[in-house]
């Protein structure tokens, strides 16, 4: 484990992320391109959902990354609170915009995907509603980062919010399931279920798309964290200047 703590030092992180970033970005672009193009052009229609099944190549990867981004922020917050590694706190801050965009994509593609079946552009499907709630958690997290000037205090408070928020996000997940049962028993065919119920022809491009989205997340995370570190360096220099 000792090697990971080496990255606590920003200079080391900047070096490593420096040469890692181009590679990851290209790989991400390749995977997404393969997954999406293959899925869009070369797969037949699904007998039930018609061509809307092609949305799965966007919705499933985005939904996965929306959740994984929050989990990564949770781990980064824990590392910050326990080991006081500034890089992990800044990584959590950089991950939030990517996470919120992924949630937004998951919401839009999920709603559009279900539209033909539900007949409306938005149906309070339990899974979609959970992503809507996750979206609110992201907004709160990002807003808290913006609201506090002192970087250390901001990192501490956002980490505490992330920890508490994660517990309540989980509780909301079950609450929404319970709420959806409501009076009519049994949810309609949950269009947006994870995993790949489809046959093999769809599964391969989906894996590429998922890998692509994951790599995209990592690339944007590295770039974002580097920017946060530079911004933090600027702030430190400016404070030093004011201190004279």
């Amino acid at each position: 484990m000792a090697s990971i703590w080496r990255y606590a030092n920003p200079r080391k992180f900047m070096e490593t992320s420096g040469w890692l970033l181009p590679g990851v970005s290209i790989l991400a672009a390749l995977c997404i391109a393969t997954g999406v193009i293959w899925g869009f052009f070369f797969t037949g229609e699904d007998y039930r959902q018609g061509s809307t099944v092609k949305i799965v190549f966007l919705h499933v990867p985005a939904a996965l990354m929306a959740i994984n981004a929050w989990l990564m922020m949770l781990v980064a917050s824990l590392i910050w609170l326990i080991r006081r590694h500034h890089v992990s706190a800044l990584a959590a801050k950089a991950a939030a915009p990517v996470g919120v965009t992924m949630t937004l994509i998951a919401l839009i593609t999920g709603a559009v995907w279900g539209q033909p079946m539900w007949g409306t552009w938005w149906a309070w499907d339990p899974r979609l509603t959970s992503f809507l709630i996750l979206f609110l958690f992201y907004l709160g997290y990002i807003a808290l980062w913006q609201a506090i000037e002192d970087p250390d205090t901001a990192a501490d408070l956002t980490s505490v919010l992330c920890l508490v928020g994660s517990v309540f996000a989980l509780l909301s997940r079950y609450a929404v399931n319970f709420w959806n049962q409501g009076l009519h028993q049994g949810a309609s065919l949950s269009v947006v279920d994870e995993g790949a119920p489809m046959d093999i022809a769809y599964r391969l491009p989906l894996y590429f798309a998922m890998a692509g989205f994951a790599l995209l997340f990592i690339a944007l995370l590295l770039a974002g964290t580097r920017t946060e570190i530079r911004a933090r360096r600027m702030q430190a220099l400016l404070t030093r200047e004011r201190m004279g």
Partner: protein
Amino acid sequence: MTALLIRDLRLAMRAGGGFGLGLAFYLILAVLVPLGVGPEGDTLALIAPGILWVGALLSCLLSLDRLFALDYEDGSLDLLATAPIPLEGVVTMKALAHWITTGLPLTLVAPVLGVLLNLPAAGFGWLVASLLLGTPALSVIGTFGAALTLGLRRGGLLLSLLVLPLYVPTLVFGAQAVVRGAAGLGTATPLLLLAGITAGAAALLPFASAAAIRINLR
């Protein structure tokens, strides 16, 4: 710690303490909804549980950002932090004081507003039960939000953005308990889950709130 509770209750009762504000807001909301939705009895009966619960939620939220702000501005929070009682105790007492001055009155007034909103007769008992079980959680979670946004300029707005998502489980189980109660279905599950969330929040959140205050006092 009871000294702190008594002081806070006394402050809330005194002039300008803001004791009745949450209550007044709840009444106004219960009046506005039918004006917006229309007088038909059956539509009101359908949405009454939800409105009564969302109203209670918002009324709690209303009186939260002043929870620590006054003590923070006049310096007594610093003094409380150096007092013999732990900060977790201070936070719990604050949440209890908030519940007594806001959560409890809401629970007692809710049935009256239920009549306004044409709540089915079967629902009244479950309404009071679910609010009694749920409002403490609203106060404890709200206290956590207030601790996070201590000393921020536009803290009130941010407080709502941070706290409302945290209210989702309590709202869902609370409102569902009333909906099912009103429809004559079993209400054991939602009430039990509601009580579970409140117990969990009351036990664990004070540590997070105290940590947030310590960070903000730095």
